[in-house]
């Protein structure tokens, strides 16, 4: 008799992954060096736009330890072009993207030559001996300037810096009304332009790749989020048969979209390993990560919103410019499109128009960064809600309540064409408001305003939803994405009754080994400890779509459920045979197959052994107890939540302090609350960092001036507050687990909550926007600017003129 196990789902299991990570027994790619490895170092362009007129590598070749030096020209025929898997429109302009520049560089940091040497230090030394002649070309860095007819071109052969324009119109799509009409007949209209600054994913483990060409297959270890996609893309772009490539993602130290890529360096290493016939290894320095790993965000967002006097939104028009940087990477053009579906957020908006123009500039390419398109959209709409509330003179929370989709209206077809399956914005918001002490803080704010306190209090709201669980493959196909979004899992019950789960997801800190163990243990009725989860190796886990975009649980976790259910189904047949009863008489519970109405039964482990021995199996049943499953959901999942932030803003110094941060997230069923809380915390840190600290800055020559962790301000523990997090639980109806996904919630929701709070603190002084990151200088400037303009244009203040007067001599 098996003892009854406690339910695993919802249990705060401590992670299986931790044991080796806290003791230092890890397998980062940089820990691996096969025998005979040559180390690579990459020479990068110091200039943003130039023709390469000559490269002399003779001296470098003679340097100690150097085996080979290659330029782009040397490997032009073999290196292919870096793939872009998302041609968003038929007329999209896509430049060739050689991993190693051939005769032109288009951003500072682009790879120009590569040295292979005995040691990494010798390889790096030799870089100094390579002589490159650059003939400078004019640089274009600003998206608006890049679209001017006389702008310098990043890629001459395209004849334009416009990559593509993608539009959605609700009247055309039949999902809603006509925006122009709504805007022109509006009782109230708000127009705003926001900037999404450029961010750097800044995972802590720098990228690293090792390629071993010896043996039947070429094996690549890489610090990647996407081993399966990487293998496919290497094969397609280099013409190497896919079955001859094995990609392994060992321990991977964070990604946040930054490792969702086929990088130039991976391709260069692959090509060189084949050419040299020896293992090669490349590990980047942090400065290389900053300048040559892809960046995120970088959009200009123009929004117009119309509403009735009593606060009902009637229309929303969104026009984006999105900076692609110098080249398209794997999914670069599609990132802003992901936002197209989220600008309407949780609101009932009757008319919607979205358009986005993607632009090439002489900067590092952009691509997915935590949330990818959705944080940008959520920021803009949540800022607009606050601006509309200010315009109408109502509490921003009231305005949201008036416009959101009510709990009893789900499922709800949105104006952007999605169907939100479930949600309860009321519950999450009520809980958040209570935890936050909304009323008391508003009163304190009033008091500070009245007294003209130099430190003002601001309250920021962000009620958000996002789409997770990418898949559905059918929808991705309709958006011209090059692949599906299904996920695969297989489960093997070993002859000893222990269980192996193979997943196509490829975790890099999310704790899949623990969570998938919980799911499998729960479904199969076996102890959590008896489950092993295998992942991140295309040979061990041959099918998969990897980990990004909070898709792993809602798609990959569901594949584990499907595989487990198939295993049980098969085991049932064998059990019925062993127990000599009809299949229908067997019932499965807590890892045991019992004959209905009797005390006869057999354990899963016994069935597994019988299936392995295969001495006596029922007709048509194959030996071994295992099953494969591929899951492709019908719909996305839609986590949502309410985030509230109180900031103290020093109007004299511009300093912003987060006084209180409360969030209530609804991510559907929770598998492991410990992991969920951790993901929310991490997301909050990133979102707050966008609001207050981080920005990739270029000087006018196109040099990244925030190229190290000394200049690019990742927050430390001292920069962040204690978060108050809680949850409500509305099951997703798009999968049987009821899960929605959590990885990006914190990032998406927190940025607008913080910026809304900063602006709210300063609104009485006439400030209605502060550009991100809201650094002390920017805040101070906004305050001073508003004071100055209030002298000439008194109506700009919108209230509390006394503060302007008081502030005049500060």
């Amino acid at each position: 008799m098996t003892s009854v196990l406690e339910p695993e789902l919802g249990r705060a299991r401590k992670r299986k992954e931790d044991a080796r990570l806290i003791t230092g027994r890890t397998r980062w790619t940089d820990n691996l060096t096969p025998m005979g490895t040559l180390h690579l170092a990459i020479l990068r362009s110091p200039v943003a736009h130039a023709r390469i007129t000559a490269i002399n590598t003779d001296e470098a070749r003679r340097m100690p330890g150097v085996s080979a030096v290659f330029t782009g020209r040397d490997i032009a025929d073999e290196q292919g072009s870096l793939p872009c898997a998302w041609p968003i429109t038929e007329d999209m302009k896509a430049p060739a993207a050689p991993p190693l520049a051939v005769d032109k560089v288009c951003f500072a940091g682009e790879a120009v030559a590569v040295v292979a040497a005995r040691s990494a230090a010798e390889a790096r030394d030799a870089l100094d001996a390579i002589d490159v002649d650059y003939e400078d070309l004019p640089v274009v860095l600003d998206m608006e300037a890049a679209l001017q007819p006389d702008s310098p071109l990043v890629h001459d052969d395209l004849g334009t810096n416009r990559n593509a324009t993608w539009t959605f119109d609700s009247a055309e799509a039949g999902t809603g009304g006509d925006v122009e009409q709504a805007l022109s007949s509006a009782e109230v209209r708000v127009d705003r332009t926001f900037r999404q600054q450029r961010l750097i994913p800044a995972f802590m483990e720098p990228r690293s790749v090792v390629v071993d060409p010896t043996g039947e297959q070429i094996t690549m270890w890489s610090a990647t989020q996407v081993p399966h996609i990487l293998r496919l893309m290497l094969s397609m772009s280099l013409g190497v048969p896919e079955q001859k490539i094995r990609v392994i993602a060992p321990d991977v130290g964070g990604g946040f979209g930054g490792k969702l890529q086929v990088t130039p360096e991976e391709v260069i290493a692959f090509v060189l390993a084949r050419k040299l016939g020896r293992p090669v290894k490349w590990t980047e320095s942090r400065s290389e990560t900053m300048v040559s790993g892809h960046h995120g965000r970088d959009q200009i967002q123009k929004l117009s919103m119309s509403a009735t006097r009593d606060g009902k939104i009637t229309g929303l028009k969104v026009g984006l410019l999105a900076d692609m940087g110098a080249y398209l990477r794997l999914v670069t053009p599609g990132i802003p499109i992901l936002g197209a579906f989220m600008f309407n957020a949780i609101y009932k908006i009757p008319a919607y128009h979205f358009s986005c123009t993607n632009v090439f500039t002489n900067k590092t390419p952009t691509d997915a960064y935590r949330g990818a398109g959705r944080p940008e959209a959520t920021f803009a709409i949540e800022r607009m809600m606050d601006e509309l509330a200010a315009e109408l003179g109502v509490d921003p929370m009231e305005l949201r309540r008036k416009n959101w989709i009510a709990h009893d209206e789900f499922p709800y077809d949105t104006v952007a064409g999605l169907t939100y399956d479930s949600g309860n914005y009321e519950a999450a918001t009520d809980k958040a408001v209570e935890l936050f002490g909304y009323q008391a803080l508003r009163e304190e704010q009033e008091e500070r305003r009245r007294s003209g306190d130099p430190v003002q209090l601001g309250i920021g709201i962000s009620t958000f939803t996002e789409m997770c669980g990418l898949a559905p493959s059918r929808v991705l196909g309709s958006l011209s994405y090059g692949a599906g979004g299904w996920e695969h899992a297989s489960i093997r019950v070993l002859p000893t009754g222990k269980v192996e789960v193979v997943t196509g997801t490829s975790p890099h800190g999310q704790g899949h080994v623990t969570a998938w163990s919980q799911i499998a243990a729960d479904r199969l009725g076996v102890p959590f400890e008896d489950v092993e989860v295998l992942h991140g190796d295309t040979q061990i886990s041959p099918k998969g779509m990897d980990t990004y975009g909070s898709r792993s649980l809602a798609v990959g976790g569901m594949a584990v459920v499907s595989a487990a259910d198939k295993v049980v189904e098969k085991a049932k047949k064998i059990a019925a045979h062993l127990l000599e009863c009809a299949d229908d008489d067997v019932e499965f519970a807590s890892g045991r197959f019992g004959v209905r109405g009797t005390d006869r039964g057999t354990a899963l482990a016994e069935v597994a052994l019988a299936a392995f021995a295969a001495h006596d199996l029922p007709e048509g049943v194959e030996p071994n107890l295992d099953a494969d499953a591929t899951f492709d959901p019908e719909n996305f999942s839609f986590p949502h939540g309410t985030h509230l932030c109180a900031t103290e803003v020093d109007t004299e110094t511009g300093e912003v302090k987060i006084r209180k941060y409360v969030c209530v997230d609804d991510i559907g069923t929770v598998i492991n609350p410990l992991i969920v809380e951790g993901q929310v915390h991490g997301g909050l840190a990133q979102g707050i960092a966008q609001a207050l600290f981080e920005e990739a800055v270029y000087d006018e020559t196109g040099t990244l001036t925030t190229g190290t962790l000394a200049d690019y301000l990742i927050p430390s523990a001292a920069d962040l507050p204690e978060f108050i997090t809680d949850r409500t639980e509305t099951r997703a109806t798009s999968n049987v687990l009821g899960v929605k996904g959590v990885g990006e919630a914190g990032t998406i929701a927190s940025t607008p909550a913080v910026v809304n709070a900063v602006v709210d603190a300063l609104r009485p002084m006439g400030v209605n926007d502060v550009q991100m990151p809201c650094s002390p200088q920017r805040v101070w400037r906004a305050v001073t600017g508003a004071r100055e303009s209030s002298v000439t244009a008194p109506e700009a203040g919108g209230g509390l003129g006394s503060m302007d007067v008081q502030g005049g001599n500060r």
Partner: protein
Amino acid sequence: MPRITVNVDGTEYTDEVEPRMLLVQYLRERLGKVGTVVGCDTSNCGACTVHLDGHSVKSCSVLAVQADGHDVTTVEGLAQDGRLHPLQQAFHDNHALQCGFCTPGMIMQALDLLAEVHEPDDQQIREGMEGNLCRCTGYQNIVRAVRDASQRMQPGAGPAVEHAPGEAQSQAPVPRTPADEHVETRVTGGRQS
């Protein structure tokens, strides 16, 4: 090439190293102590933090030759006889890591902090860990873990994990004097029995 003798995690190593070799490279590439990792090239991230004679240092900003004649403790030297150090246990119990890349550095830095301040409040922890960056956790659980470990290591928490009474502000915990021969300090420091 200079010759150095370094005691790392209780074992003495003698090696010839290039003068420019960093301590972190020496630990990783020569000794295979791959628990210590490199996250940046500007000594900002703290991923490479180890102890040199009991004090935390960023091993990417120390040359291997500077460690000559000194004691180094890495995260791999903390667990004893298969038992985790209370800080390691606290990181696990409080889910203070996700990808784990920053974790060894965090643990080594926290150990130094707890040697200085036995019962730090959250602000002291946050400031004490300021030089160690984490991109995954948002730090809250790291702060919890350090606080939790400080409790586990308090007087009354059991003989093996107590701070030495009366030596509270001056006595270094065990990793400051690595190696098993110092049973004295092991009892007064951060080790579990």
